[in-house]
């Protein structure tokens, strides 16, 4: 089983990222759980969203305390200190930043495996808006092939309709451009 924790702000689509991943995994015949940090939500407030994917039925209703992967959608949250809390030794930090990997590591005080992409830039160029939730899924998949990229196509279509294609393009570009350092 793999556990992923997403960090974003209310309105940035962190919960949607998890939902799309869960639906992709389920379409592949896997088991998945996607859920937000439960509570009243406000635009702009930092939030977390959670994802579990497994080949076996998931019989766990706990929150995720020790994720295998942490995905940070909003650059500003990197320096807020808590994004790497509980990240398993050997786990990966996947971050949205325009800075090089080394700088991101320094900002977070993190020495482990790190994947970085400038998702904000890609999203603005490909979709015209700095909403990075789908773009960052490209980075996540580059860091860990938890589902096949193609499995995201149907959930993206169902969720975004006419603008699904742009989201997919942004995602695929992020997949290509993500830099990973061990």
């Amino acid at each position, binding site marked *: 089983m793999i556990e992923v924790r997403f960090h974003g702000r209310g309105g940035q689509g962190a919960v949607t990222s*998890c*939902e799309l991943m*869960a*639906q992709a*995994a*389920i*379409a592949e*015949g896997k*088991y*998945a*759980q*996607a*859920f*937000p940090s*439960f*509570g*009243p939500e406000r635009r702009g407030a930092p939030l977390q969203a959670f994802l579990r994917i497994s080949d076996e039925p*998931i*019989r*766990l*209703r*706990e*929150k995720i*305390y020790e994720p295998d992967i942490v995905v940070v959608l909003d650059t500003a949250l990197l320096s807020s200190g808590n994004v790497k809390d509980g990240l398993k030794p050997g786990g990966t930090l996947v971050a949205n930043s325009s800075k090089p990997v080394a700088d991101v590591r320094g900002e977070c005080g993190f020495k482990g495996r790190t994947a970085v992409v400038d998702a904000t830039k890609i999203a603005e160029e490909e979709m015209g808006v700095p909403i990075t939730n789908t773009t960052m899924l490209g980075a996540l998949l580059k860091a860990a092939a938890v589902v096949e990229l193609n499995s995201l196509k149907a*959930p993206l279509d169902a969720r975004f309709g006419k603008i699904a294609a742009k989201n997919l393009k942004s995602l695929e570009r992020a997949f290509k451009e993500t830099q990973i350092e061990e």
Partner: protein
Amino acid sequence: MGQRVGLEVSLACSEAAKLANVDVIAAYPITPQTHIVEHLSELVADGDLDAEFVPVESEHTAMSACVGSSAAGARTFTSTASQGLALMHEILFIASALRLPIVMAVANRSLSGPISIWNDHSDIMAERDIGWIQYFAENGQEVLDLTLAAFKIAEDKRVLLPVAVNLDGFVLTHVIEPIEMPDQSEVDAYLPSFEPQQKLDIAHPISMGMVGMPEVYTEAKKACLDALEKSYSVIREHWDGFAKQFGRQYKPIESYKTEGADVLFVTMGSLGETCMTAVDEMRAQGLKVGQVRIRMWRPFPADDFMAAIKGAKSLVVMDRALQPGAVSGPVATELKSLLYDKGQSIFVSNFVIGLGGRDVTRADFANMAKKTMEAQSAGKEIACEMWGVKE
């Protein structure tokens, strides 16, 4: 055969009501039930469900409208949580007394105060005596299945009682997980349209909701109690029928790794899934633990429970609500009273856990088992302990 989809559990609940082709939904939104009723209102507005959606001004009205609707012979559904359920309180007793087969999904949420939107069982525990059939779902699939089955059970002429399907707020309602969606044709084969035994009808007038003089009140209550007790076998029949139609079997009490277990956890609701994983981990370490899950809460399946715990030396009973001023929590009180009647002297520890949305982890289960075994060896009792209180 149905389709396997990734769906939010709230929406699975709404889809069950849609598959059941309900006639009337009267509901008021309250976190964490909102997605259930919002989705139903969209289905009705978009013409995907031919039903009347009545947006009422409070939950008291919602249940009142449901009583009227069901009395008029309409298949009726609603959903609520916490304060909303509490606000329905006086009408809930009437729904069962009038023998109305209303189905209600309760997205279990803590009762104020303090104000809490998070999950525990205090809302439904405050409604133990309403005379409804009450059972608990543990995951998204169960939410869909048990909601569908609820209509079949409620409307059976041997039952004619309302049914509350409990699902943990947020922990289930707001999670996306795999759901097998049955085909409409499969559902229609299992659940025919509602044929009321009696209804409010201008052509054949009757009156419901009469005064009951002291000479009749006791007998009236006996009739309802008899129906609730007898519903046990009808519930089993329709759960078995569900298994035949859809391939998923539900039982009043579910057992997990109880063979050879000295210590049994007793859980209700989604907590049970985390417990199963904890049991696996403890068994791997050589601890003889197992688990019993209560699915049917009212009527309480005494014989099934006694059979399930046979051979165990201690029970670790989880309560997700307080029963302030009483000897122990609601579930533990029920079980201890049953055990006493059966002359059983098994050791019972009771922990009130996961109040107001506090997370319950595998480590908690391990520690509760440890504490129980220590207390038992030392001859001490754990009549009721609030777990994890910060001193």
